């Protein structure tokens, strides 16, 4: 197999497209080798490496109707089509991006004709919309953008990101070869030097640093992930010690964030850490999630599930939910053990669609501490929890992430969860359910 070189994340402006939007756009642009056009309307947010544009709407231009041959023999979007899309951009407060395709593979750029049409049209369009306007030109493996900002400046797009089973990073040309770090020699032989460099550049959040999360942090740090955001409000208890990676007996009472940070630094002294010793529903933790490239959800509260699910759909950041269920009946009978690793992607079924969040339990989680205890007046029995089972799910999740960001999955697309059933020694894939009317995830599927 010829390796497809992955592009490490690039600093600067980026455009993120939900997988379904990219699938519709690719089908439109790349089917017949001819030129096609469209408009993407995008939300503007801040991100870890620069401003991010989040693709919210795709408006396809009909061939020969909306995308027509101009006087120069060059194709262009028809004026009425541009006007309608620009009015929508203005009304919804979204950036306007005209899109077309060029011939080619891993390299792309605007032609002189493209650039002079931007210079003729975009100053006026920017005035009409009072939003960012610009253009993106694609091949199936590359993208370049010319952005005209509301403040009168002009800049380029560093990359287009499609978070799916493989996280595609389309850039104007293949990234420069990365230097090989001898420490990571053995894993670079799998990821490639650019894959290893990708891991170094990523910002990854781990929500919940207990039995599952502490293992995830250890694996991410050993892999060389460069920036970790560690979120947990708890302190280590004596009953946690058998499941906290590398914990010592004198760690009882220490914040779980400190233990995870210590392990991460032991694995990689250069790792950048953001420690948030608060519950994920606090504004600071919610904000931090928005600055990540990937989120591991290793906490089992309804609030953690809700706010991570929100980050996925509001900011188009992929996440992985990890959990182990060990059901025990009232009479002590042990049921099937499930170790679940569930990708949550902007275009997949969300945790609400899959009935994995309870609206009332969420309300209780959102209460202040004292009221929460009183409101949950039925004391729960602690569920069984075992390090080896947690590690099974944690390793599955980190393997999925690592192959996704280095583009080593066989398939670029797919959002199936993996279910391990250790007692019967089988493993299944399970596709997420999608509710077309879901107010949380349907906004990632707006097509016009």
């Amino acid at each position, binding site marked *: 197999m010829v390796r497809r070189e992955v592009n490490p994340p690039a600093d600067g402006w980026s455009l993120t497209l939900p997988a379904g939007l990219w699938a519709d756009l690719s089908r439109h642009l790349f089917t017949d080798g001819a030129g096609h056009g469209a408009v993407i309307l995008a939300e503007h947010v801040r991100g870890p490496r620069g401003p991010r544009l989040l693709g919210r709407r795709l408006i396809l231009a009909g061939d020969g109707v909306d995308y027509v041959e101009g006087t120069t023999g060059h194709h262009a979007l028809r004026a009425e089509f541009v006007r309608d899309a620009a009015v929508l951009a203005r009304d919804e407060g979204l950036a306007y991006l005209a899109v077309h395709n060029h011939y080619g593979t891993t390299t792309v750029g605007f032609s002189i004709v493209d650039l002079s049409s931007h210079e003729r049209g975009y100053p006026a369009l920017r005035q009409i919309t009072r939003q960012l306007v610009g253009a993106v030109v694609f091949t199936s493996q590359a993208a370049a953008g010319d952005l005209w900002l509301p403040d009168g400046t002009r800049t380029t797009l560093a990359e287009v990101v499609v978070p799916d089973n493989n996280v595609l990073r389309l850039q104007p040309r293949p990234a420069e070869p990365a230097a090989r770090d001898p420490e990571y020699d053995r894993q670079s032989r799998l990821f490639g030097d650019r894959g290893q460099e990708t891991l170094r550049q990523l910002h990854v959040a781990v929500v919940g640093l207990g039995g599952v999360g502490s293992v995830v942090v250890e694996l991410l740090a050993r892999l060389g992930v460069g920036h970790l955001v560690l979120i947990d409000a708890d302190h280590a208890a004596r009953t946690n010690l058998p499941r906290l990676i590398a914990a010592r007996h004198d760690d009882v009472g220490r914040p779980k964030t400190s233990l995870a940070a210590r392990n991460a630094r032991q694995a990689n002294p250069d790792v950048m850490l953001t420690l948030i010793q608060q519950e994920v*529903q*606090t*504004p600071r933790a919610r904000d931090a999630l928005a600055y990540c490239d990937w989120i591991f959800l290793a906490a089992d509260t309804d*609030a953690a599930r*809700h*706010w991570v699910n*929100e980050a996925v759909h509001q900011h188009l950041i992929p996440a992985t939910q990890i959990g182990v269920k060990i059901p025990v009946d009232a009479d002590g009978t042990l049921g099937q053990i499930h170790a679940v690793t569930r990708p949550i992607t902007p275009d997949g079924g969300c945790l*609400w669609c899959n009935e994995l*969040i309870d*609206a*009332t339990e*969420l*309300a*209780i989680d*959102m*209460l*202040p501490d004292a*009221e929460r205890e*009183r*409101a949950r*007046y039925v004391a729960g029995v602690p569920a069984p929890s075992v390090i080896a089972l947690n590690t099974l799910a944690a390793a599955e999740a980190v393997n999925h992430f690592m192959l996704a960001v280095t583009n080593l999955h066989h398939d670029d697309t797919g959002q199936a969860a993996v279910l391990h059933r250790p007692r019967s020694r089988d493993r299944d894939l399970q596709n997420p359910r999608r509710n077309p*009317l879901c*107010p*949380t995830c349907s906004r990632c599927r707006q097509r016009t």
Partner: protein
Amino acid sequence: MTTPTPAVQAAIDAVRDDFAGHPVEVVPDGAGGAYVVVDGVHLGGQYTPPTTWLGFQINAAYPRSDVYPHYIGRIARHDGGSLGEAVTDTEWRGRPALQLSRRSNHWNPAVDNAALKAEKVITWFAAK
């Protein structure tokens, strides 16, 4: 300090409309939600006093989140009888209170809202 989200603000406005004529006190919870107290809510002649305050939090996850639980002043039955299930003595934001625990098992953000839920809780308690 995070101010209430637009959805929470809209819910507060709807509560004010629904309980027009009642004083409504709103305190932001600092995380995008708010505590709401509606005064002078009539709960029925079987109680003493028959009228008290009703309080609840509309949190930052609303309208995906249920509004739960609800709190009222510590009232008692005239006949000295028990207040029954899902009513417990508690304290809420420094006030002696009764906690009313009414879950919405099929909470649907497209249909359910904070004002409607408050009405339902009052109706349920008044019918006890």
